[in-house]
């Protein structure tokens, strides 16, 4: 195998390394790693409910992964996926509550998704605008905007919109509900997996077309690869900074389709379970490649739900470690072996 052909496999090596490291840690806690992995596979892939759980979690992660991946193409690191998701989900929920109860699905669903995407995009554009007009590093501003989004939604929820003695809003109009897999395919999974999964796939395909097939993508990737040359060629790099942040924010906001429209049908405190942050890892593992994001979202969703399922044998935290080790290896392998890779 030549050294050049090794490069695309770095994510796979990293994953194997992380799984091996995870096995050692499991063994150190006194459990049998093999048994744990087996149980994990059984609890996820042997039942419809398990598969549904993985697909449901993957759906959110595809959206939040894209939220990081698209800005990444213009050298922006959008850490604000969590905040954008919260704003998007909150906007979708409020919009859904405000809709008349009899609103038909073909009006309600697009309206709620538009609200979610717009809210996420606007929230991300704050960071984009600060970057373009004031030169503020988007990493810092988008992290901070997460806290602000958390505070705003938390405040509005507890003080204005929550159903008394709960931490969630009232349910959205029924017209805005996305059908779950059971209803779609006549299954008996009783899982949260819903139609949003297909939306996520469609949006990913759309992102791939935009990046690799459209003229907009040509401009956008050019401004990411060489801003100076792009400007010289008459491409407005500032506009692409704003555009990429807005698209990223819209992606994070669209995660609401899974959480609000597809599953809970309301906004609930803490229901994002940090998916906005995990999107960073998803995008990194995928090398910000849209098709790769689907795979890496599935992997992280599996580790996430699988870890929960074997919680009785080993602490779930071990699987968070596996996720983190995977990312660390992906980042550090090229650095550690860079000399060897280059020495061809």
């Amino acid at each position, binding site marked *: 195998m030549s050294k050049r052909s090794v490069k695309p496999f770095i994510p796979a090596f990293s994953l194997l390394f992380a799984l091996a490291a995870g096995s050692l840690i499991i063994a150190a806690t006194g459990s049998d790693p093999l048994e744990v992995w087996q149980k994990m596979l059984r609890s996820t892939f042997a039942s419809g409910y398990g598969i549904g759980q993985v697909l449901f979690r993957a759906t959110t992660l595809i959206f939040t992964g894209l939220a990081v991946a698209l800005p990444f193409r213009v050298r922006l690191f959008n850490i604000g996926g969590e905040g954008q998701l919260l704003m998007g989900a909150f906007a979708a929920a409020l919009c859904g509550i405000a809709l008349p109860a009899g609103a038909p699905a073909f009006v309600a669903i697009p309206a709620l998704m538009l609200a979610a995407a717009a809210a996420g995009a606007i929230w991300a554009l704050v960071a984009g605008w600060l970057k373009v007009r004031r030169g503020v590093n988007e990493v810092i501003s988008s992290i901070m905007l997460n806290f602000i989004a958390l505070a705003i939604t938390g405040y509005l929820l507890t003080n204005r919109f929550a159903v008394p003695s709960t931490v969630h809003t009232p349910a959205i109009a029924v017209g805005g509900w996305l059908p779950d897999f059971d209803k779609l395919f006549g299954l008996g999974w009783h899982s949260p997996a819903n139609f949003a999964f297909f939306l996520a796939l469609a949006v990913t395909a759309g992102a791939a077309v935009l990046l690799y*097939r*459209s*003229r*907009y993508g*040509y*401009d956008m990737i*050019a401004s990411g*690869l*060489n801003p*100076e*040359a*792009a*400007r*010289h*060629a*008459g*491409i*407005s790099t500032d506009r692409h900074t704003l555009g990429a942040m807005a698209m990223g924010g819209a992606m994070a906001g669209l995660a609401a389709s899974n959480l609000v429209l597809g599953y809970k049908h309301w906004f609930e405190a803490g229901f994002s379970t940090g998916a906005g942050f995990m999107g960073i890892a998803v995008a990194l593992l995928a090398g910000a490649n849209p098709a790769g994001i689907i795979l890496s979202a599935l992997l992280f969703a599996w580790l996430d739900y699988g870890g929960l399922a074997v919680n009785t044998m080993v602490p779930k935290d071990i699987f968070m470690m596996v996720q983190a080790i995977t990312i660390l290896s992906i980042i550090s392998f090229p650095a550690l072996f860079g000399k060897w890779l280059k020495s*061809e």
Partner: protein
Amino acid sequence: MATAVKLSGITKTFGNLKANDNVTLSIEAGSIHALVGENGAGKSTLSNILYGLLQPDSGAIEIDGKAVKFSSARKAIEAGIGMVHQHFKLVPTLSVTENIILGKEESRFALPTKRIGREIGQLGARHGLEVEPGALVSTLSVGEQQRVEILKLLYRRARILILDEPTAVLSPPETAKLFATLRSLAAEGRTILLITHKLDEVLAVSDSVSVMRKGTLVGTVETAATSKEELARMMVGRDVLLRTANPPQSVGKTVLSIDKLNYRSPEGVEKLRGLTLEVRAGEIYGIAGVEGNGQSELLSLLWGTFDRDGTTGGSITIDGRQTHGLSPAEIATLGVSMIPEDRLKSAVIAEYGIEENLILGRHREKAFHRGISFNRETIRKNAAAMIERYDVRGVRDAAGSNPPIAALSGGNQQKIVVAREMERPGLKLLVLAQPTRGVDIGAIEQIHQRIIDARKSGLAILLISSELEEIVSLSTRIGCLYKGSIRHEFSEEEVRKGREAESGFEREIGMHIT
């Protein structure tokens, strides 16, 4: 005379590339030996081997008749070899003296900076390397920084000095001064290896010349017994037209008119002061000048890419239209093409394929579109036609049908840029900045011919170059840029006469730009 450096059978391979193939070379002590060759001919590899930065796969090095093996630059320095790199290795926040003794401090504690400074002053005075020992390096001009680099070598008692493209950053008078220094050093018995691609300089300063081509040493000749044409032929491997024919032609109406252009950078530095010039259809207006006299600012104002936090004054009119405030895309649609100074930085996207680079900046033309996407077929045909018409080489050697442009040599990358910009539909004005920088002699010849052809077809051309030779051979009229304004303009008549007595004419231009 004794042999100072003897390289025999040096071979060095990188992967499949033979950077040095059985190179044998000997340099006499006390002589100035020039090493010339095109980009990628193996000059840098050879000098890095001599300086201990690279180790040869095979071959032997002798210094003053003794066989040596350098495992690192430190070993080479101990053997009396010193190198001035193209990019200086100085600490800007330290003084001249501190930079010179850096790494060679005589004492661990109190440094006798005063005494050493005096020594450095004396050393400098003897060889025309005047520089204030106490001055901070960050306050020095590029020429002065280079003197510090040379003094550093002398202070370390280097007897063999390697200089890598030392004149690339110097103005003509600074170059003359450097050459005087080199001669004075050689007269004291030091041996100098001068790496360059400028043949005029080789003829002006060296005692002997070695020519490299594609990793091999083509030959070594006495400078007195050779000519520019012979050296060029050795470098390229065929006859090269060093001077493109430049027949006169009648000019048309004014296309570009720049009137009292002022520009003050956001930091408040005055970069352009009342710059005024006109370029007419069918002429090449050459701007001669040492870099940093406002060329970059003029280009950015012409193309609409200037920093808008700066203040501007005066006007630019292209084909009757004021362009102030227009974006690059809008200026381009007026029929303007621009080849920027730094190709890799601003004219190409290295990771994009040749086909994509051939439409960069022209990708808004409807002919390349289909729906929300591009018309792949048209773009491919466009690329094939350009590669053919502009003789772009190396496309087929690279992997895939549309390799990234980075796979091509500098000269061929430049041909891509030239092709793209010259073929812009409705082109009226062509702005060229350093169009042949980093380009091989063979490709320079072709690019120059293209520029003359474009002029013949009635384009107005503004040419900015720091190579006086290029300015003189191509221009219809010449403006001398100094500190942000045209200090002197040579008329068509004067330029035509000047071309007949070139070296005198270049000296005359030199006086107006420094």
